[in-house]
């Protein structure tokens, strides 16, 4: 399949958005859903065709001298700032873009299909706003695909905004609910703040390098990431510094902050747990598998630049490692299963970030062989596997929520008997994320750990510990939902496995989660397009599996059967437990800053100043004029006698003055 067909992959979702958005109201709800799914199916087929052609086909310039190249398919001008600094909107295929095409289209298609069932009541009637829902899904898919095939930094920024707004619209899908309303606003504003930094980063970078284009920033003449090109891009700043750091380090740090906003890195993570107010399939698509990895994708895109600017890379490493632990700790105590999964997502994305950041552990430029390119590959590989099993977990959660009408795990318990397919699919997802061989997560996480140990023993140990926590909290959720105690049937119909539109995606994604680890990522998605030699490091693999098993056993001990051990533990460390349950009070801190400091401390005084001081001044001017004219109005009395009188007095006074002058 010609690579230029990628245009169709972008264009079909855009068309579906416009079509469903404009004409959807006139159609029956069912029809719009079916059309949406069909459109996405076609998109997915073409995307697979293009991606597989890119990876395995020949003859379209994608492999030269054994190097997998970046191919620019299409790149028209969109907005010219100056003659040389031009924003283009185009399509670029390289290993990670092609991989993302697969990820986005797979998950999006699954979610489209799944939503047919999820967004309907138990009799299969679609709920209100069904057309709108499918239109927004299409908008999101379009924006995300536009982001991953971007040819330049500015295009990524444009689509960052677009995915941000689609996320806003979908989180706030149930717009009558105050919680959804609040969550969507929060998500947009927090990511907007991050995007401001992204914008500043682009401004600085483009000012010094004179370009947005990846072809001039990171890709060499052979079409793959090239350190020499990145070197010369950095060198074009001419060693300019600001506050002691090079301007490019500033730029790259700012760009990372932009990515951190979308990827929910601490302390910009606060929007993601609240974003769970959206419909669950949306959480699976946007807030687990695709949009939230945009930040990781962004850093990976500029990877050679980050490798050179070690300072920026160190920041990413620290932020990533901390976030991974922080989110995992919170996930251990959440009672809302979607929130727990959300924190798990934050933690896993932090794994990917850290993995990218440890790639340059030795400080030298990346060698073609050897361990240092490993982190990049592991990160992208984990992005791929995580998207599959996390989407699976979220869709399972959706099926459960749809069945029991609650997010809280104390309303669930003992569902294994009622929903066996969902239970097994969820178990597969848990095994995958915990890193048990041969499930997908094992392979990618293992390589991340190897890369982390490569940077230093501390980093490896830290990440292994977080991996153990991951196994623990996932199985905690699993046991609490499906076992713990017998399910009490409250509603008139007992929970059961959901209709085929919802179950089929679960089965497919579960199957993918089993086998995805065998994708030869080290051959396909390496930073420089070369094949990367890796082998399983048995020490790391063995120890990480052992840690995961310990985590699972602990969860089993605590949560498989109803007992009072968890309660006792909670009471023993109640301060820690409460703090973690309240997410270490980050939301309260933000609340304080936005309401007390910015709103009460800045906005209200400014508005007062405007009304009372500035406007008061002009009103005073008008009033003064008014009073002055009131005061002198007697001079214009219209009475001839008084005019003559004043005239006489004036004339006499003048005469007197003249006389005095003459006499003197």
């Amino acid at each position: 399949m010609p690579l230029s067909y990628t245009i169709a992959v972008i264009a079909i979702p855009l068309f579906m958005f416009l079509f469903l958005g404009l004409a959807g109201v006139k159609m029956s709800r069912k029809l719009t859903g079916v059309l949406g799914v069909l459109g996405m199916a076609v998109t997915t087929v073409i995307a697979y065709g293009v991606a597989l052609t890119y990876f395995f086909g020949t003859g379209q310039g994608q492999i030269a001298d054994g190097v997998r190249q970046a191919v620019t398919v299409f790149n028209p001008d969109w907005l010219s700032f100056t003659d040389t600094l031009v924003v283009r909107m185009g399509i670029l295929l390289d290993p990670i873009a092609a991989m993302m095409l697969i990820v986005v289209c797979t998950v999006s298609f699954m979610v489209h299909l799944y939503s047919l069932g999820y967004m309907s009541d138990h009799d299969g009637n679609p709920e209100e706003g069904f057309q709108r829902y499918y239109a927004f899904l299409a908008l999101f898919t379009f924006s995300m695909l536009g982001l991953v095939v971007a040819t330049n930094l500015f295009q990524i920024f444009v689509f960052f905004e677009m995915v941000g707004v689609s996320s806003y619209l979908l989180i706030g899908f149930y717009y009558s609910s105050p919680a959804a309303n609040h969550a969507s606003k929060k998500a947009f504003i927090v990511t907007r703040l991050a995007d401001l930094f992204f914008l500043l980063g682009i401004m600085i970078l483009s000012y010094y390098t004179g370009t947005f284009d990846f072809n001039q920033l990171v890709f060499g003449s052979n079409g793959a990431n090239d350190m020499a090109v990145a070197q010369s891009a950095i060198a074009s700043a001419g060693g300019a510094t600001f506050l002691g750091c090079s301007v490019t380090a500033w730029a790259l740090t700012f760009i990372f902050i932009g990515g951190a906003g979308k990827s929910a890195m601490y302390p910009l993570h606060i929007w993601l747990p609240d974003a769970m107010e959206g419909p669950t399939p949306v959480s699976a698509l946007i807030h687990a598998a695709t949009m939230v990895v945009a930040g990781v994708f962004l850093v990976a895109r500029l990877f050679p630049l980050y490798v050179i600017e070690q300072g920026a890379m160190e920041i990413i490493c620290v932020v990533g490692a901390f976030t991974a632990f922080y989110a995992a700790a919170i996930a251990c105590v959440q009672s809302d299963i979607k929130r727990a999964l959300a924190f798990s997502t934050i933690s896993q994305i932090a794994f990917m970030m850290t993995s990218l950041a440890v790639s340059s552990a030795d400080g030298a430029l990346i060698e073609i062989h050897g361990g240092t390119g490993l982190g990049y590959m592991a990160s992208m590989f984990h992005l791929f596997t995580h998207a599959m099993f996390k989407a699976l977990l979220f869709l399972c959660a959706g099926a459960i929520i749809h069945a029991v009408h609650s997010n809280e795990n104390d309303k669930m318990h003992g569902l294994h008997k009622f929903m066996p397919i969902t239970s097994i699919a969820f178990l597969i997802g848990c095994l995958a994320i915990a890193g048990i061989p041969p499930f997908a997560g094992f392979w990618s996480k293992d390589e991340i750990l190897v890369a982390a140990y490569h940077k230093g023993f501390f980093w490896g140990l830290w990440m292994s510990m977080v991996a153990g926590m991951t196994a623990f909290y996932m199985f905690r959720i699993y046991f609490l939902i499906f076992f713990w105690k017998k399910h009490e049937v409250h509603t008139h119909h007992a929970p059961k496995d959901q209709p085929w539109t919802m179950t089929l995606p679960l089965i497919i994604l579960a199957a993918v989660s089993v086998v995805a680890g065998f994708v030869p990522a080290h051959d396909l998605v390496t930073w420089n397009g070369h094949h990367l030699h890796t082998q399983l490091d048995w020490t790391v693999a063995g120890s990480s599996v052992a840690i995961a098993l310990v985590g699972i056993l602990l969860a089993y001990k605590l949560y498989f059967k109803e007992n009072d051990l968890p309660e006792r533990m909670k009471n023993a460390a109640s301060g820690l437990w409460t703090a973690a349950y309240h997410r270490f009070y980050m939301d309260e801190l933000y609340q304080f800053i936005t309401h007390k400091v910015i709103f009460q401390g800045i906005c209200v005084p400014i508005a007062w100043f405007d009304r009372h001081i500035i406007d008061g001044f002009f009103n005073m001017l008008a009033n003064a004029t008014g009073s002055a004219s009131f005061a002198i109005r007697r001079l214009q009395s219209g009475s001839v006698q008084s005019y003559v009188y004043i005239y006489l007095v004036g004339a006499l006074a003048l005469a007197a003055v003249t006389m005095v002058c003459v006499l003197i």
Partner: protein
Amino acid sequence: MEIFSNPLIYFVIIPMLTLLGLAFCNNRGIRAIRTVAVVGAVALVALAVYLVCLFLQARGAGDTSEMILQSKVTWYAPFNIELALGVDGVSVVMILLSAFIVFAGVFASWKMDPLPRQFFLWFFLLSTGVFGFFISIDLFTMFMFYEVALIPMYLLIGVWGSGNKNYSAMKLTLMLMGGSAFLMLGLIGIYFHSSADGNLTMNILDIAHNDAIPHQWQMYLFPLTFVGFGVLGAMFPFHTWSPDGHASAPTAVSMLHAGVLMKLGGYGCFRIAIYLMPYAASELAWIFLTLTGISIVYGAFSACVQTDLKYINAYSSVSHCGMVLFAILMFNTTAMTGAVLQMLSHGLMTALFFALIGMIYGRTHTRDIRDMGGMMHIMPYLGVGYVLAGLASLGLPGLSGFAAEMTIFFGSFENADLFRRVLTIIGASSIVITAVYILRVVAKLLFGEVQDEHHRTLTDASWEERLSTATLIVSVAIIGCFPNFFVNIISDSFLPVVNALKDYFPVAGL
């Protein structure tokens, strides 16, 4: 007369003919009044589109003259007053903008009551002034049309307005007249220094070529003209007419005023103040940059606490129009192009906002967001329109605001000095504050629960309201999706200005 072969003159003649047509209608024949108004508006849009084609054709054919379609007629020889016409890329897009807003405004005031005939009479008189201003290149004619555009505001607000309309109308008129007084002093000063050899002229192009205004005079005349126009461009601290004026004005007048009239300020600042007095402009830029920089964040912060829909938009306009003047003062082609894009964008999206607010107000009889909620359920068309206008305002790619703001920020950042860089960063931070107040309104007004049970019976937009808003929405989307089309028309027009500034100001990238 030769001048009648110049298509530009018809931008003044068509509104005047419409005025004449309206004069023959009577107040009970609303149908006839509407017909005349629509014919006039459609003719203006058609002519504006034709003008764009003419301009592209001329530029395509290699005509690189500063202004195309120039012609002049002497009006009053002793003072060298001429009716001199000519347009460059900036005027062309401003004319296009004005035509679309007049078109949308006519449909937005479809059910105007009372005195529809008189309303449209003043409305078209105002349009005459606006178009006349954009086609003239003579100081006196420009000033005359400027006044023609301002005076009708007083009656339009005072008679057809709402709320505290007498106060607002008086305040708006007096403050703008105060600005005009400064402006007139400035223009007279420019005229008397327009030539070194005694051949005084009012023609802007000639004055610019003569480059004869002494530097010490520029230092007086530049602030006068800049502030004069700046008042209309809602520059801090001369912006306070805007919230009250907009709040009281009827829908179509708010649209035209925020959509077009405020652009006269920005246009004048660049066409007269900066172009004719480059020395003083570069010497004094820091003062006005500071003021406009304050405008941007100040307006945005103020908008965050307002509860009246029109106040929110008026303060939002202070912020966005501040960005126009801010960008013009950055003295490079990119930023200045961004300023014009921002004028287009702000014009269309504010007109859209005011149209929607007017329509919502006409139904609910309140503009206080605390009394409303869940409007999306009740009037989905207006709700979606409002969300789109909001997204355009907070700079969503694909709608006009984004392209404009990005061009401004990247253009401003080209200046390498710390002062301008810091201001750019402060200005750029407004994108976050804008998101805050826009989403706040959208959440309160459209989403959530219905606050007032009486609102449940309200209807969605009628056909003429749909037409009016759809025109604006489509225009906003076109600018947002194909910004380069407009950039190509606009950007070359700034070369003369940037060249004039080059001697005094270190412009990056030249």
